[in-house]
């Protein structure tokens, strides 16, 4: 009884991940049941984006450090996972010079994803401790340099990446169901991380690192932990994406994708998991809509020259407007949640069958 009550109490104060995932779960189920191929693809990508954006939020949102290296870790996860999941025949075809010890390895999808995620986390763990000493502009520039370094290595390590050329022959394992499962799982992971001791200390260090140190927080250490978890999730997302798209080159993990994932997080709101989710949904669908407009305008020949980059320009302008007028994003740093008043009014109205006077609800979001 007592533990049951404790669990109920805990759930009541942590409604956020449920509120965020239930609509997404419904969306996945409906699209799976009634959607056509295109819609299924879009929603699959939506959930992969969710993994990437939430992974970015875990570090960037809680530490306050703008992280340009995230997509680099996505690339590491993508390439590492496919090296383990591809059949030996496929590897022989696309990577003829591959190291002999890697050639016969052929693991199922999930272990491959995990290995990809671990590889990204390992790289983050090794380079992270030194990087996490930096703050502000120095940290941002260094993380950008890290993205460039990872990209350069992917482009030049032809033996395992096929160099700048496209790597093909990856099995298509990432279905809508799988990407939805992990997308929703990571909502819970990102939310719970904020509430762990490390997550709380990291958020404190984001708001004031001198005050954080003054109460015994080792800022470098908690940043490092957040950075490694974030890279793990990016690596995982990279693996999911690789097994969805099935052929790709290192250019998939560079500036365009960085901008895309960053804009989702910033537009939604860096400081909260809710913001990350809302930003991902809004920007993913907006981007598809804009692309459709761009394509139909071009097909109809509305303009003399084809419309190019309309989507990117539109999203950039949106990003700029958000940064000017709502710098903390659509949702800001507060999570969507039912407050205790909401919950009380839910139970009260179900007991009395009468709407609760609106005055009792006032002032809760002040």
């Amino acid at each position, binding site marked *: 009884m007592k533990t049951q009550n404790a669990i109920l109490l805990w759930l009541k104060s942590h409604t956020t991940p449920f509120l965020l995932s239930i609509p997404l779960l419904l969306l996945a189920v409906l699209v799976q049941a009634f959607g056509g191929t295109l819609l299924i693809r879009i929603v699959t990508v939506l959930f992969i984006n969710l993994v990437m954006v939430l992974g970015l939020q875990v570090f960037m949102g809680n530490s306050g450090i703008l992280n340009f290296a995230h997509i680099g870790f996505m690339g590491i996860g993508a390439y590492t996972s496919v090296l383990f999941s591809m059949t030996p025949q496929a590897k022989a075809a696309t990577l003829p010079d591959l190291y002999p010890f890697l050639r016969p390895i052929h693991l199922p999808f999930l272990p491959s994803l995990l290995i990809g995620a671990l590889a990204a986390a390992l790289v983050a763990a090794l380079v992270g401790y030194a990087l996490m000493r930096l703050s502000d502009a120095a940290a941002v520039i260094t993380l950008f340099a890290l993205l460039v370094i990872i990209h350069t290595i992917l482009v030049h390590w032809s033996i395992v990446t096929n160099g700048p050329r496209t790597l093909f022959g990856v099995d298509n394992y990432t279905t809508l169901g799988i990407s939805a499962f992990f997308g929703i799982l990571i909502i819970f992971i990102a939310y719970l991380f904020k509430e762990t001791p490390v997550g709380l200390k990291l958020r404190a260090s984001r708001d004031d690192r001198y005050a954080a140190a003054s*109460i015994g927080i080792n800022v470098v250490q908690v940043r490092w932990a957040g950075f490694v978890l974030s890279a793990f999730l990016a690596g995982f997302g990279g693996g999911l994406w690789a097994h969805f798209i099935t052929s790709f080159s290192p250019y998939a993990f560079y500036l365009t994708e960085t901008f895309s994932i960053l804009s989702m997080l910033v537009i939604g709101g860096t400081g909260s998991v809710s913001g990350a989710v809302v930003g991902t949904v809004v920007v993913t669908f907006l981007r598809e809509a804009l692309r459709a407009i761009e394509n139909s305008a071009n097909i109809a020949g509305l303009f003399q020259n084809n419309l190019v980059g309309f989507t990117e320009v539109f999203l950039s302008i949106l990003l700029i407007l958000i940064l000017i007028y709502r710098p903390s994003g659509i949702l800001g740093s507060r999570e969507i949640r039912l407050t205790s008043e909401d919950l009380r009014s839910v139970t009260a109205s179900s007991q009395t069958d009468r709407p609760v006077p609106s005055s009792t609800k006032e002032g809760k979001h002040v």
Partner: protein
Amino acid sequence: MKDCESGNSHADHLIVERVTKNFAGLRALDSVSLNLKRGEILGLIGPNGSGKTTLINVITGLLPLDSGRVFIGEVEITNKPPYEIARAGLGRTFQTIRLFRELTVMENVEVAAVSRGCSRKEAKRRALQAIEELGLEGWVGRLAGELPYGLERRVEIARAFALQPDFLLLDEPAAGLNEEESDELLNMLAPIPQRKGLGLLIVDHDMRLIMRLCHRLHVLSYGKTIGEGTPEEVRRIPQVIEAYLGKRAAGG
């Protein structure tokens, strides 16, 4: 939750030995020594720019010192990183308030206990105690960035309490408070050192508060110690009258 008992050294003294600190040619601290006992309230006073904040920053590791040593009991903490010094049992507040503005009042205080290894649950219990001691019960769910100014100071002090330090350094806790708020703060702070076995060092310009609260005073001027003793003793030191209490006290 034994693992997050304060776990400090339980040393009886914070000892500052002949500390010197220069800022590019300016000697902000010149061989300053002081000794803070657990259970006592020591007032650190001196005119603006006399080095009070610098002394706190040097003791807590925020600024490296040029010479001298700092000990908590037998344990040397000279030039250790600030988080290690905090964990050794030394808490502080800042002259310019530093709160975690995007965290709630509860989280602000709780995180200090969490950083000592408490579980969230135990940390909440400990935080609630500190929150009650400072009369912040009505504000626990508010974001710290949304608080009225007078309460920000109190959250900072509650946070430092939740660290459960053996020694606590408060840099101008009454700055910007009106007389009533400052009296309220005085009444909250006065019984704490005895009750918690805590050594409290307070910097403030409000002489009324300092004289009523402090057992001993330490006076700085241009980075040098110019007087030490009970408030009555210090009040009679000519240099102090001249340098700090000024013409008004000298004439009256």
